[in-house]
């Protein structure tokens, strides 16, 4: 008999983040009002974070299939076959609001959560990336947030023994009130050992493993992740979880060890919305039901109510559907690693989530109402009224710089362009002995042990472009991430996306989102790259001010032969420096325009997807033929900054360059414009002919810019700077700001 004494009202529903319409929908579907425990379950399952109610229909338009895709969106992570009986599982996820409220724990548990998503699939995690966006250094909280987030990512990743091999860090006043912390993990799994989260086999035991359940993180998904900030963020600290990487390390090893035995039917991590969502999602995917006995759940403190146990977001917990009779195998493995394992329920055939507590049924809900029955909205979308004004940029109103050396140094000193060594030297990027290209090049490269293969990883988004034109900005995020892995010698394999936006109930935000999804789709279709997993983070707003639209793209590329890995810096005097692609007269959305003129204006750089594809194809062919000694994507700061990075980002003392160039366009656009589809390669002169052949076949323009020589960067008559000065500026920019 269902306990219904604590009947709820529309006001209670509103307190749980459910609208009057949604509450009415729940009552209609159930044929009665829910009790308070059930309302709690609905509040998390129907939250934006868990149900994707504002984004679901649009996400269905993304290309998710491909000949190598073993698992697309809808599981804990996407999985792509890389041959040799191996596959890679990967996903990116946001932990924005928790990190803003409590930066160390928020970022740490973001890493912990995404790691669980990967090893849940049976994959051994081998690499972490992260994409971080902070406010400007003028803002009083920025240093505190940077310190806390970086320490939190390191604190978790370093302790659990998974290398953090790359990422991106941006600073923009648009994130002053709402930082972004997106965490990515990739794991390697044998193709015949992939685990999924589908509860099957009526009567099979549902087992709880890992840490005990406490009162932390209750309503993290519904109230923290699915609503805007207002007032004091500090008040929300109790909704942030606390991480324990040591326990997760044990959980990781225990799960992987257990997966070698024939004991598990399916497995799911308890992330957002904890026991509730893991139970409901496993039963939903399996088309089954689950009955839970909360008295069997290991708890950290006395007197926890069913509501609290179901909604706790305590970390480092997993739910396993074991094969009936294999309970002791599970217990033995977890006991070896000193972890709890407890049977907390059974798989049923009634399609219901039934929850027992002290021999009473405290919730009884049809699974399909919680999952497929969740609302899906076509929210109204409209471009912002000031879009035309924002996109208008008259180049003749922009004065040329007086001193191009100073402009180049100012760009290298911009925290968005400067070396991120201060950040990544706080991360262990070596553990597990696979890191072939370390942080600080276009993409990280890792070998795949037991094969000759490697993978290249890059995470990218220029949100300034997205603010000016979310369609083009999102396309550029995809193609730039692809270009980065190509420069490392890899063929783009697939992406995972983390879509960070403001409040989707506002038409201009929904327009940004719609346009960005369309951009990702078009770019992925053009490059033939599937989207295999992802995450949407809405409500990134404080006091009604939304962040710039930030569709972060993490790209995974495959090197058929690890020996082809390539880095971005020049290798030695005498090599020819060559530009693949075309420089246009465009400055819209550039770092240069922001830095020297304080403007975020114009349209983002022109992008022709077919031309982009050809540039990437030529670069990759040249690398795999062994012609190329370095390859570097041209991005923020344009050609001059990219050349400077080629000179100074490698081992000391670096390589100088002498560039002879002339263009029919404004010199500032030539040097600092951010035209897309451009790559700088260096190669021995004798290979120039072959490179020209490859480029001619693909219609890709090739320009010999100059040669690697000396200890200065000289670009025509405009720039002439000593490498030591370039390097000093570029390497001290971030530490100086952090320590001031």
């Amino acid at each position, binding site marked *: 008999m269902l306990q219904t004494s604590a009947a709820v009202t529309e006001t209670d529903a509103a307190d749980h983040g459910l609208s009057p319409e949604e509450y009415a929908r729940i009552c209609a579907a159930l044929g009665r009002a829910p009790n308070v425990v059930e309302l709690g379950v609905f509040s998390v399952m129907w939250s934006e974070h868990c149900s994707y109610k504002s984004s679901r229909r649009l996400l269905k338009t993304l290309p998710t299939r491909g000949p190598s895709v073993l698992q697309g969106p809808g599981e804990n992570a996407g999985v792509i076959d890389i041959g040799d009986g191996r596959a890679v599982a990967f996903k990116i996820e946001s932990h924005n609001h928790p990190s803003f409220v409590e930066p160390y724990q928020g970022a740490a548990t973001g890493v912990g959560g995404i790691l669980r998503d990967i090893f849940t699939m049976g994959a051994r995690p081998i690499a972490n990336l992260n994409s971080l966006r902070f406010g400007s250094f003028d803002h009083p909280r920025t240093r505190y947030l940077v310190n806390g987030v970086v320490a939190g990512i390191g604190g978790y990743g370093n302790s659990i023994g998974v290398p953090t091999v790359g990422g991106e860090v941006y600073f923009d006043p648009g994130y002053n009130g709402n930082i972004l912390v997106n965490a990515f993990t990739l794991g390697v799994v044998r193709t015949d050992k992939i685990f999924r989260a589908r509860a099957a086999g009526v009567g099979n035991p549902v087992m709880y493993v890992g840490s005990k359940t406490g009162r932390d993180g209750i309503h993290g998904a519904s109230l923290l992740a699915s609503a805007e900030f207002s007032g004091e963020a500090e008040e929300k600290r109790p909704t942030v979880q606390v991480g324990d990487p040591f326990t997760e*390390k*044990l959980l990781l090893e225990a799960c992987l060890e257990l997966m070698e035995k024939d004991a598990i039917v399916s497995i799911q991590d308890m992330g957002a919305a904890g026991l509730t969502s893991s139970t409901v999602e496993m039963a939903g995917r399996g088309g089954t039901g689950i009955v839970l006995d909360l008295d069997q759940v290991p708890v950290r403190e006395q007197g926890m109510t069913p509501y609290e146990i179901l909604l706790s977001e305590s970390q480092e917990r997993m739910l396993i559907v074991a094969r009936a009779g294999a309970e002791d195998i599970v217990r033995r493995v977890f006991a070896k*690693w000193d972890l709890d394992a407890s049977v907390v329920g059974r798989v049923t055939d009634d399609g219901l989530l039934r929850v027992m507590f002290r021999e009473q049924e405290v919730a009884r809900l049809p699974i399909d109402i919680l999952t497929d029955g969740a609302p899906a909205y076509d929210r109204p979308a409209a471009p912002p009224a000031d879009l035309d004004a924002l996109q208008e940029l008259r180049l003749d109103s922009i004065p040329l710089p007086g001193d191009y050396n100073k402009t180049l140094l100012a760009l290298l000193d911009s925290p968005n362009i400067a070396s991120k060594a201060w950040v990544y030297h706080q991360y*262990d*990027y070596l*553990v597990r002995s696979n890191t072939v290209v*370390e942080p600080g090049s276009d993409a990280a490269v890792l*070998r795949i042990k037991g094969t000759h293969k490697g993978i290249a990883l890059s995470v990218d988004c220029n949100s300034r472009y997205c603010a000016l034109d979310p369609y083009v900005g999102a396309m550029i995020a995809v193609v730039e991430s692809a270009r980065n892995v190509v420069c490392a010698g890899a063929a783009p394999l697939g992406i995972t996306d983390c879509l960070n936006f403001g409040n989707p109930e506002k038409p201009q935000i929904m327009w940004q989102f719609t346009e960005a999804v369309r951009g990702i789709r078009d770019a992925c279709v053009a490059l033939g790259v599937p989207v295999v997993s992802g995450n949407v983070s809405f409500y990134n707003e404080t006091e009604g001010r939304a962040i710039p639209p930030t569709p972060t793209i993490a790209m995974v590329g495959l090197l058929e032969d690890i020996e082809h890995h390539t880095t971005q810096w020049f290798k030695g005097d005498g090599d020819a420096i060559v530009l693949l692609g075309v420089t246009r007269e465009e400055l819209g959305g550039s770092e240069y325009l922001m830095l020297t003129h304080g403007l975020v204006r114009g349209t983002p750089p022109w992008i022709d997807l077919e031309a982009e594809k050809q540039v990437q194809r030529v670069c990759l062919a040249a690398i795999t033929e062994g012609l190329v000694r370095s390859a570097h994507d041209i991005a923020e700061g344009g050609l001059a900054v990219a050349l400077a990075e080629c000179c100074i980002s490698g081992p000391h003392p670096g390589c100088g360059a002498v560039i002879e160039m002339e263009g029919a366009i404004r010199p500032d656009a030539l040097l600092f414009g951010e035209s897309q589809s451009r790559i700088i390669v260096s190669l021995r002169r004798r290979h120039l002919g072959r490179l020209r052949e490859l480029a001619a076949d693909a219609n890709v323009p090739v320009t010999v810019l100059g040669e690697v020589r000396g200890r200065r960067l000289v670009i025509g008559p405009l720039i002439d700077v000593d490498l030591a000065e370039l390097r000093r500026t570029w390497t001290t920019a971030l530490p100086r700001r952090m320590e001031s």
Partner: protein
Amino acid sequence: MRWGVVTFPGSNDDHDALYVVDHVLGADAVALWHKDRDLKGVDCVVLPGGFSYGDYLRCGAMARFSPVMESVTEFARAGGLVFGICNGFQVLCEAGLLPGALIRNRSLQFVCTRVHLRLEDTDTPFTCRCTRGELLTIPIKHGEGCYVADPSTLEQIEQNHQVILRYVDASGRATPDANPNGSLSNIAGIVNRQRNVFGLMPHPEHAAEKLLGGEDGLKLFQSVLAAYTEGARQGTTSVAPGH
């Protein structure tokens, strides 16, 4: 020669050490479990990097009480080779098998980077294949790697040539700028008086393959193998007590 690599709960570089011994050095490697007292007849025990028992108390403070450490201590006292890397070095100091202690880095930050090291002494089984004064490039990755000891201990280990590795700059000078964590006298690695127990903060197992950026660390593993082979040839058991 058979190597054993201990796995404590929270060990992270145990697989890496096993990989180097097995795949790079081509020697026999077995995993040892913290709850077991059995050392499986190994000739050298590696205590790997990581965060044993979470290192929530003091680094290595819990691990020294584990069952396997009882056997490792006995093994070391009998002259067996023990090679403690990073967290392993911390465990050896906590267990009293090496003098001194490792505290938080001067910067208060975790640091992962390649460092230059000067090899101070070749009269150990861990460095017999190296040259005195040679420079090695090996990564460090730790938050608590600042080596400290009281003045008399420091004087003693210097006098006894127990300091094996020092942080130096690219030209081999032990300057303050070349010291990544604040260690006294730029100390990066030491041996015990009997020279059969070696602890170092740098990770030689992460500098053992050209593909991964360098092979300098492999020399330390090769030295152990050479010392063992030489010892076996001469029929002595002073270096390795054997099976």
